């Protein structure tokens, strides 16, 4: 994943990759942001956990309801007060809410 490309998305404060276990692998931080490597490490773990839970919910929902369109999962986002973290696969981005384009961000993470 080209983190620099993700940093070009509007409002991106950080872009990062992580292992399947949620250990931070690589990251880029926007100059001046208050985010830190330590925070990205914790966010990485939450991304893995949330994607796993969302995957379980998608599979369970389809199985229980017979509705389709949830799988395969294309990502998960936590919307905070000032910024959102958007994750898919082994990659995540932190995006400022006032500039965020969720659709473009999900799309970029799948590229």
């Amino acid at each position, binding site marked *: 994943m080209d983190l620099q490309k993700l940093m070009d998305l509007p409002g991106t404060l950080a872009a990062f990759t992580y292992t399947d276990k949620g250990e931070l692998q690589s990251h880029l931080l926007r100059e001046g942001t*208050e985010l830190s490597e330590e*925070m990205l490490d914790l966010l990485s773990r939450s991304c893995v956990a*949330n994607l796993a839970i969302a995957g379980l919910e*998608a599979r369970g929902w389809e199985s229980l309801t017979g509705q389709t369109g949830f799988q395969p999962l294309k990502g*998960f986002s936590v919307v*905070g*007060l*000032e910024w959102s973290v958007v994750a898919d696969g082994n990659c995540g981005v932190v995006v400022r809410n006032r500039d965020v384009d*969720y659709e473009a961000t999900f799309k970029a993470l799948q590229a």
Partner: protein
Amino acid sequence: MHIVKQLMAIPGVIAAGEYAYRGDRYSYQGALTDEFARMASILCRANTLSVNMQSEMLDSFAENSGLRPVQGWIVRGAEVTVCAVGNYFSFIENRDELLNDVMTIMRAKVGDVQDDLLVNLYARLGGDTREALY
């Protein structure tokens, strides 16, 4: 206009509703059965509590980092997306610009979720606000 009605007026919104943090009280409009809406309400409650717990952990690393209080979350599926802001949820099709529009409307109509949201919402149901929420 009520937020659920406003959301349901948008082409591509499959269903929208309001859920309670207890998970067993809800209202909704759209293409869900009553049982599916009950399940969606429980799912939304579980995810909301989970991401709030995570944000509290993150806060212990960096106070006022900009994540807390959590406003909502999004599950992006292959063709369908589920999004929640505060105690409202919506199921939407993955159409161009729909997710951004729905999130903008939900954030604007719900307003900034405050730190004591769980207690406040629970109180609105007429429950004992001192009762354990987790």
